[in-house]
């Protein structure tokens, strides 16, 4: 019993990390029909820069705000130079390559400046595990899925109650029609990338105490986060969070009851099966293209 609970709690923590990354993909896709494949590196920026600012004597809250600020600037610039020139062209997938390239460059630069070692980001959430029916978990690990759920709720409220949020939904529904009725589609896309990057930076800061900050921390998280976004249905924010949490829990149960070596094989097989059965993802909306 305690072993199963242990796997569940560990999976919840990891799934929460995937969910946070996947929310960023959802936001970007919804408004720009393109994603930043360097989004994993946005997490890295948030985590690594927080440590750098702490090293320079800034207080933790200031370091966090500054890091998120840099992540926002990164998202905006990336949208302008690596997405917009390519996403406007019909059937263009040039943005895939440009964002991957920027991610690789960013990772290499971070390795040179930050160093190759992972470093801890201090947090009271990982000082001591709490024990629940014999299973141990750090508060930080529980905080991550909780924040993911809160973000989805707030995002829903924002999209329904604010003008900018409604504009995001309109662009997500139909870019051309939204443009015709006066929505500045380019500004909405830029805002979406800024928002996704802010959340990416925050996610990096939240997960760093658990997984440590390093120049290379973003790669796998980005891949898994994107996989989760696809399974959940990239058009559905609650969908990607649920898929993230489920994916994390399934991974840990495979680790626990089959083997660690089987984890990735089982996980990515699930991705393929889900996509065969639900091409739009588990909770995604089927997108209609009128010709």
């Amino acid at each position: 019993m305690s072993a199963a609970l242990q796997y569940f709690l560990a999976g919840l923590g990891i799934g929460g990390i995937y969910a946070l990354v996947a929310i960023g993909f959802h936001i970007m896709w919804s408004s720009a029909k393109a994603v930043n494949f360097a989004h994993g590196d946005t997490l890295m920026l948030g985590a690594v820069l927080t440590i750098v600012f702490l090293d320079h004597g800034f207080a933790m809250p200031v370091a966090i705000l500054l890091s998120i600020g840099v992540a926002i600037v990164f998202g905006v610039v990336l949208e302008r130079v690596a997405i917009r020139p390519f996403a406007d062209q019909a059937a263009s997938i040039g943005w895939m390559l440009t964002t991957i390239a920027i991610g690789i460059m960013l990772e290499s630069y971070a390795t040179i400046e930050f160093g190759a070692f992972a470093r801890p980001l201090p947090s009271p959430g990982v000082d001591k595990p709490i024990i629940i029916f014999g299973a141990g978990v750090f508060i930080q690990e529980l905080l991550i899925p909780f924040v993911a759920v809160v973000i989805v709720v707030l995002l829903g409220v924002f999209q329904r109650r604010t003008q900018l949020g409604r504009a995001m939904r309109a662009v997500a529904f139909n870019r051309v029609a939204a443009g015709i009725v006066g929505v500045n589609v380019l500004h909405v896309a830029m805002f979406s990338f800024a928002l996704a990057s802010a959340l990416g930076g925050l996610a990096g800061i939240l997960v760093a105490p658990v997984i440590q900050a390093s120049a290379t921390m973003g790669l796998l998280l980005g891949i898994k986060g994107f996989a989760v976004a696809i399974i959940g249905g990239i058009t559905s924010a609650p969908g990607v969070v649920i898929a993230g949490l489920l994916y994390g829990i399934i991974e840990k149960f495979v680790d626990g009851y089959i083997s660690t070596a089987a984890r990735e094989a089982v996980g990515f097989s699930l991705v393929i099966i889900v996509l065969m059965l639900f091409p739009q993802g588990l909770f995604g909306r089927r997108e209609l293209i009128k010709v």
Partner: protein
Amino acid sequence: MSKIALRTAIGGAAVFATAIALGTGPANAAEANPCIGNSGPVTGPAAFGGKSIRMGAEMAVDEINAAGGVLGKKLKFIQYDDRGAPPRGVDNVRRIGLRDNCVAMLGGYHSTVALAMRDPIHEIKMVYVGVIAANTNVIENGRNPNYMFRVSAKDRWVSKFLVAEALKRSPNNKVGIMYENTGWGKGAYPNIQAALREQGTKEVGAETFNWRDTDMTPQLIRLREAGAESLVMWGLDREGNQIMRSLQKIGWNPVKIGAWGFAGNLGELAGKLANCSLIMQTYSWMGKLEPRAQKLYATMQKRYGIKSQKEIRMGSGVANAYDAIHIIAKAIKAAGSFDRQKVYEAMFKVKHNGLVMNYNPAFEQTEERHDAILPDAYKLTAWYDGELLPLEQTPCK
């Protein structure tokens, strides 16, 4: 294509074909250049390994050149980045051996890269001296002549060393194994099993983990339920930290004894959780240093901005690379030439009183003794309050 461009292309092709036909490429030159190459991780998560090799090698090259060089020529050290990727390592061997025409090369950090280098090294017939990557089969590869040498640990010997230390601390001889799912970890696993068999026992369980795994509780729960009293661990710092944190989560504190992949910054990542985790090394820069090491440490402070002894990451790599360069230089002197074949033959004549041990001789003409550092020179160190200290300088047992 313009006529001029066409003529240039045809001319270039003709020169190239003639050069091949006459065999005048640099690879066939009898005398190699007075340089020693290295392919290691200069960027990527293991860049500290590449830096440790560079520090040790450059300090040795500087000493040799200050004393007049080798056979009247100044030695040069050239490092290329492989980022831990085998194809890049193979490419770098060819750059070092064919383009730079170096007399020898040092190996890098990753065993997977070193394993991939065996073929190009033997095609070029250039002496390779590994200074970190410890996979047994890098050196014991069945080739004759065997151009692969090593001034570093050998996993088969390390396994025996770690198993012996683990059994000393396990009242009922119950040892569990945790190893990373890479060429290095998979290569070491049969070595650990064999070492346990030699001691008349076998592991109670063996578990794997992947790079960047963030939780190891399932594996550790299985090992705890199998009754393990001690864990022999084979991996790197980042995953070592997750092992420590997962042990804390499940409330288990077995004896932890690991290979030197945990000698980087495990203590910084895991803090007190890593206390008394025992790590094998070939050299420690901590505590009181002998005069020669003290001088090298002063050089590292001045030249590489090292502020304290604990900032020397993968210190064994620094010492191994330092000794390896001196051994190669002595082999060139003994050969009396920069001819690669003569240098290869002279490698077996070298005796050297090095930083890690007294190599007497460094190598012998058996496959097993292409490894210079003998198990007697292995040291047990322990993480304690963020520092990796010689065991006797800690309260750990």
